[in-house]
């Protein structure tokens, strides 16, 4: 077997797993867009905020310590305890639900029926507010996140592939875990949306507000639920990306990676977000490997996803799985 092909396979596998991580972020967008028609620019910051909160709780950091110390002249920074990862994740989820409630109560409840562009602007405002709020609450230094997920090369895959191809694939354990978690998350979300009472109510609200009200669905409850779900997805994405590259401001920029995924998969489709993520992940890695690095001087990963998404947009504006746009005259 030619070397190029074997390396290509390794690149392909790594691309698939990078794609899963993109898909995780895109999922958060899809959830909120489906249920409320809001394109949530703050989804990336939500992931950052979730990761910051998780690290803060695990490390026993005192929230708003800088502010407290400045006002009261104290010198406290830590409670002096460490919270186990599982408990910390649960507590972070409680914070994300509270945040979902606050976001709905103080912002979006007042913007019902406004133009989509106004809702979009509101999410930009929310993104920057949350960024500052997260900094104020937990500090802006780069933090290490370790919830006990295995990292480093998977030796089994390395060995097996070495025996077959004479070349060991480098597959990161963390990526494998991320793939597994993302798969479970997607299956759970699809089952929830399709078959549960609240999932059905969520789809109903997404479809027609008036009709939803008339069958007894509280819009407020569904919106808080959806923002909580998006917060949960953000937390999962935050854990994966945070473990990979540290919890820092740049984490919020992963939202930009989700945009081409959404253009590809459609803004309203959960499976679309997954398949879109995979195509982008594999596409950009393979392009870099076959054309980018050898002929174009590399670093094509920065823009390739967007160009791919543009090409898709031209031929299929509703995305791969998006609801078909039918114009009736």
């Amino acid at each position, binding site marked *: 077997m030619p070397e190029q092909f074997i390396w290509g396979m390794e690149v392909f596998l790594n691309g698939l797993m990078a794609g899963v991580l993109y898909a995780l972020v895109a999922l958060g967008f899809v959830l909120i867009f489906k249920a409320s028609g809001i394109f949530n620019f703050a989804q990336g910051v939500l992931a950052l905020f979730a990761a910051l909160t998780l690290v803060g709780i695990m490390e026993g950091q005192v929230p708003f310590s800088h502010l407290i110390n400045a006002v009261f002249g104290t010198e406290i920074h830590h409670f002096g305890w460490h919270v186990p990862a599982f408990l910390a994740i649960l507590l972070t989820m409680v914070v994300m639900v509270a945040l979902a409630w606050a976001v709905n109560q103080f912002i979006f409840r007042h913007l019902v029926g406004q133009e989509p562009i106004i809702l979009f602007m509101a999410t930009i405002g929310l993104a920057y507010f949350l960024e500052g709020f997260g900094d104020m609450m937990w500090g802006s230094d780069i933090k290490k996140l370790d919830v006990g997920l295995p990292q480093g090369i998977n030796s089994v895959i390395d060995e097996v592939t070495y025996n077959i191809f004479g070349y060991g694939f480098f597959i990161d354990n963390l990526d494998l875990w991320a793939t597994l978690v993302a798969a479970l998350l997607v299956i759970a979300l699809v089952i929830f949306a399709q078959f*549960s*009472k609240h999932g059905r109510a969520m789809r109903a609200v997404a479809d*027609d507000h008036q009709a939803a*009200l008339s069958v007894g669905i509280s819009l407020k409850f569904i919106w808080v639920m959806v923002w909580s779900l998006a917060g949960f997805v953000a937390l999962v994405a935050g854990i994966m990306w945070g473990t990979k590259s540290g919890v820092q401001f740049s984490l919020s920029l992963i939202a930009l990676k989700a945009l081409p995924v959404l253009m590809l998969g459609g803004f309203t489709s959960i499976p679309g977000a997954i398949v879109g993520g995979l195509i982008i992940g594999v596409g950009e890695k393979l392009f870099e490997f076959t054309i980018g690095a050898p002929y174009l001087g590399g670093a094509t990963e920065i823009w390739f996803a967007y160009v791919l998404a543009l090409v898709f947009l031209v031929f299929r504006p509703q995305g791969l799985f998006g609801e078909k746009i039918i114009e009736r005259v």
Partner: protein
Amino acid sequence: MKDMDADSYITEDGRRIGGVVMEMRNITLRFGGVVAIKDISFDIREGEIRAIIGPNGAGKSSMLNVISGFYNPQEGEVYYKGEKRPPMKPYQVAQQGIARTFQNIALFEGMTVLDNVMTGRIRQMSSGLLAQAIWKGKAEREEVKNREQVEKIIDFLEIQHIRKTPVGRLPYGLKKRVELARALAAEPSILLLDEPMAGMNVEEKEDMSRFILDVNDEFGSTIALIEHDMGVVMDLSDRVVVMDYGQKIGDGTPDEVRNNQAVIDAYLGVAHD
């Protein structure tokens, strides 16, 4: 003979009409300076088909929106099951057991007929978020029970053949029937129908009339409906409220209303002074 003052009575075709389930007292609704409803009172009895009729712009739809909580009147009280109802959100009214349809149809276009009708059961599903998420035991039994009731309604309204069809693809007449099915699935104490026959041809109107009568007969539903087509309503209803320019100009059995001079004037278009 009908005795309106007794608590219940039996109609000529043998249906039992019970006591007052909803009462509107001196309802006035304004939009800015425009008075949509002016000091209207009437009641709805259990098991009856109660119509609100009137020319276009008479305030019928506004009245239905007051009953279903989409509008809150500036003056007057709504009594439901003997108790005064505080101002409520539409979803709270729905949870109290008042289901409705819309003049312009408000269905979940992207969902199948079955899913649409299932949303009508949301009031009957009590399992919490966690139980639903885990999807076991109680939630599952509930889903099965709700499915049975929904299938019964789907059969009854003769829409089995389109169960799995997305509503967006259906023709108008069928959409109206799906909307009726969804409202019926809630097992409402009062079923509000906003112009159920609007935009239908004669044959579809006859079908819909038959379904309304059958629903009332089979499920014992209390039905309040709005219609501007007088002919249809007279054959259908037990009692009729007639509105014109936001005011009540008649109230009684179809025969009484038919012979009411104010009603005749309103429909023949006598000049108002």
